[in-house]
Structure formats: structure tokens, C-alpha cells
């Protein structure tokens, strides 16, 4: 039986992938990408969880043997901020495409090429 966190993370990844594969609007694809990123972050953090242990901040009487794994959290911490910056860059590409072609439908943009 798979854990509920793994289930949620895999579901978010699949929903985001569905939006990327099926949807035609560029902004909707970016929304799917953002949801997928949240799913990946959730998966990484839930791999590092240890049942019955506390947060890896060794104050308030927490000993090192009572804390969860800090490394996946350190990875995810930077990935979130980088994710919003790259999303902003992709959105500015979408803005320029809309200025040039007047549409956000990726199939029409592909047809207009050349």
C-alpha cells in the first residue's frame, strides 16, 4: 500500500503532465508546469521524512537523533525560488509571443512559423 504523500505527489506530477500534453493555451501549460514542480518538491520532502521525529532545528531540547533528514529540505528550499524566477522568464516569452502573433494557441503559433 503506497503512502498518501507519495500518492499526492504522483497525482500532482501526472496532472501537470496532462496539462502539458493536452492543453493548447501557453499559459495553461505553464500552470501545469508549476503544479508539476510542486509535486516534485512534495515527493522529495516526503522521501526525507522519518516517522516520529521532529524538524531538523536543534533548539528547544531536540537532540540530533530526534530530527528528520535535512538534505532534501535544503535541496527543495532553493528549488522553489528558482522555479518562480524561471516561470517569470517563461511568462515573458509568452507575452512576447502574444505581442507578435496575437494568440496564445501553440498550434497556431507553430503554423505561423516561416
Amino acid at each position, binding site marked *: 500500500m503506497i503512502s498518501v504523500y507519495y500518492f499526492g505527489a504522483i497525482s500532482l506530477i501526472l496532472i501537470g503532465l496532462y496539462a502539458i500534453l493536452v492543453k493548447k493555451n501557453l499559459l495553461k501549460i505553464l500552470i501545469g508546469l508549476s503544479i508539476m514542480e510542486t509535486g516534485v518538491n512534495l515527493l522529495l520532502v516526503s522521501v526525507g521524512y522519518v516517522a516520529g521525529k*521532529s*524538524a531538523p*532545528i536543534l533548539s*528547544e531540547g531536540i537532540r540530533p537523533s530526534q530530527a528528520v533528514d535535512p538534505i532534501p529540505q535544503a535541496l527543495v528550499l532553493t528549488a522553489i525560488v528558482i522555479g518562480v524566477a524561471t516561470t517569470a522568464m517563461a511568462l515573458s516569452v509568452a507575452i512576447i509571443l502574444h505581442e507578435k502573433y496575437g494568440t496564445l494557441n501553440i498550434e497556431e503559433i507553430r503554423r505561423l512559423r516561416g
Partner: protein
Amino acid sequence: MIGINVYLALIAIATLLSMYRVFRGPTTVDRLVAVDIMTTITAGLMVLFALYYQRMIFLDVALVYAILAFGGVIAFARYMEGGL
């Protein structure tokens, strides 16, 4: 610490009810109102988690939500009234 389960259950029911409004809301503003209420409820839930896990550092996360959550709502509102 026995009664905390009751409070968590009440907050969970409140979250489910406001999720119903997000699902059904006829306009976008209805959904946004429901998400705003969910944000407020979530700040309370985070404070209760801090008490449940007996760590004071969890209160900082609720503080972030209390201060920053209205920025997104204001961005939506300014777009809707055409003042962005």
C-alpha cells in the same frame, strides 16, 4: 491535549465546506473569496500544529501567511477592477 483533535476536526470540516464553494462558485470572485477564507483558516491550523508538535518555530510560518496572503488577493482585485 485531548481536545485538540476536536478542534482539528472542526477546522477540517470548515476547509471541506469552503472547498465546496471553490468547486461550485459561479464566478471567479466567489472562488477567490473561498480561497481567501481557506488561507485564514490555514493560518489557524498552522498555529494549532505548532501546539500539537510542541515546537515554537512553527509559528513563524503562520506569521508569513498572516502577513503575505493578502498580497495575492490584492493583485487579483486590482486586475478585476482594471487598475493594474
